[in-house]
């Protein structure tokens, strides 16, 4: 038996539990539980290639501000979130950094860069 393919749609507060129905050849034959077309599209993507934007921090070595927040420049495969976290633990940012600066290029060959999301030294201080 094929694994149950049920996805909770996050498109709106409704949170539909959508089950994908397939024919014998494995082609998508329909949906059960989706209230809208966008939901069906999301569910197919989520089953085929679930991706997430990963946010984390990297070390700076500066005692007064030990961490720099970072994000992936584009969503990465869900399964790579933990492996990318191990990469972030290895990098150290060198000052000065502006939000948007690339900290690690093409992380784990995902075509996503790890980019800073804040200035370092920070934008919100006295000045």
């Amino acid at each position, binding site marked *: 038996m094929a694994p149950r393919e049920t996805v*909770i749609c*996050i498109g*709106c*507060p*409704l*949170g539909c539990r959508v089950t994908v129905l397939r024919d014998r050849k494995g082609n998508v034959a329909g949906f059960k539980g989706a*209230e809208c077309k966008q939901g069906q599209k999301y569910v197919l993507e989520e089953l085929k290639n679930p991706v*997430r*934007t*990963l*946010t*984390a*921090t990297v*070390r700076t070595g500066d005692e007064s501000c*030990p*961490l720099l*927040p970072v*994000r992936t420049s584009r969503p990465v495969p*869900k399964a790579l*979130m*933990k492996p990318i*976290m191990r990469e972030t633990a290895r990098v150290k940012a060198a000052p000065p950094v502006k*939000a948007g600066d690339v900290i690690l290029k093409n992380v784990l060959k995902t075509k996503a860069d790890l980019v800073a*999301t*804040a*200035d370092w030294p*920070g*934008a*919100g*201080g*006295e000045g």
Partner: protein
Amino acid sequence: MAEHIDVAVIGAGPAGLAAAIAARERGAEKVLIIERAEQLGGLLPQCIHNGFGLLYFEQDMTGPEYEKAFIEKARSLGVEALLETMVIDLDAERGITAVSSRHGYMKLKPGAVVLAMGCRERSRGAAGIPGTRPAGVLTAGTCQRFVNIEGYMPGSRYVIVGSGDIGMIMARRLTLEGAKVEAVVEIMPWPGGLIRNEVQCLHDFGIPLLLEHAVTFVHGEERVEGVTVSKVDAERRPVPGSERFFPCDCLLLSVGLIPENELSRKAGVELDPVTGGPVVDQNRQTSVPGIFAGGNVVQVHDLVDWVSWEAEAAGRSAAAYADKGRLKVASGVKVVPGKNIKYVVPQLISGKDDVTLHMRVERPGLKATVKVGDVLWKRYRSVRPSEMVILEVKGDALREAGVKGELVVDCEIRGGD
């Protein structure tokens, strides 16, 4: 501080920044933000996750990115800021008393004041969790600061009480940093936060969400050693015999936020017992003329985008008040929460002008209809207490319906929950 200040904004989080910017743009010459922390931005620097700005900037931003856009705009408009300065008193004539180690004791009398103090997390005491009082019990926001700013992991094995957004976001963050999150325990039959957080923070990592459960005991003398979790009945009382022990060295609390209104009280601002924030009219003026309020100090929002928008309204009104020494009162009609509506903000409207109503339902349901008196109704496929209902009401429609005195807002549910 002898010079004249048109608008003083208390708090430099997303609300304070947006209010100050809007006040400057509306013509206030001298706008001053007073902030007790050493930097602008409030809590946004520690909210390193994305999901901010989807409405305001139509872009998926992280907290620091959202904050930076507002800080840069405030700086370019010449908004001034006093950092590491604590406002210790506010009176009904807009008199502010503040202290800082750099400037000492200050008294200010701005033309108008915007309250933008945001909110505070409910603590263990407020949640009433029995047991010993060991180290390792902290709020989700405090933990977020430790992990994202200070660079400490306060524990390695966690149980999280309450399924508010910060709690779920910390469940993901801690898991990604290598900790084990045993469970998120929610006393209500539904999750306390947004669906996208339930899916992407809990389901993605296989973290159990225990609905209708409560932590009924905290174990450990020096340090948390575990918690007892029990099922609760319909009256939210623990069910005897349902106890389960979860070993953990950290208990995080994500059990709601309370608007921070000590200063509002000192100024004699009338508070709404349900929202915990000031009663405001549609200009975001409080019951004290010249004192305005916007953002989480008024009502706890789901999305920062709405914090910014609400605070902008307060900032614009404050600038107008500072200019003329008064503002047309927009409080002729009282908005009253009716069936299945917990609260509506603003509590007072003019009854003549366009207005945006923010409200929360008491219980979730499918196929809901929200009715604003005889003025307007709107259908929703689903309503949930954790997702604010926001309705635009046109001034024409209010005038046509001849709304006077009170306007009752109801939410009828036809589809069950």
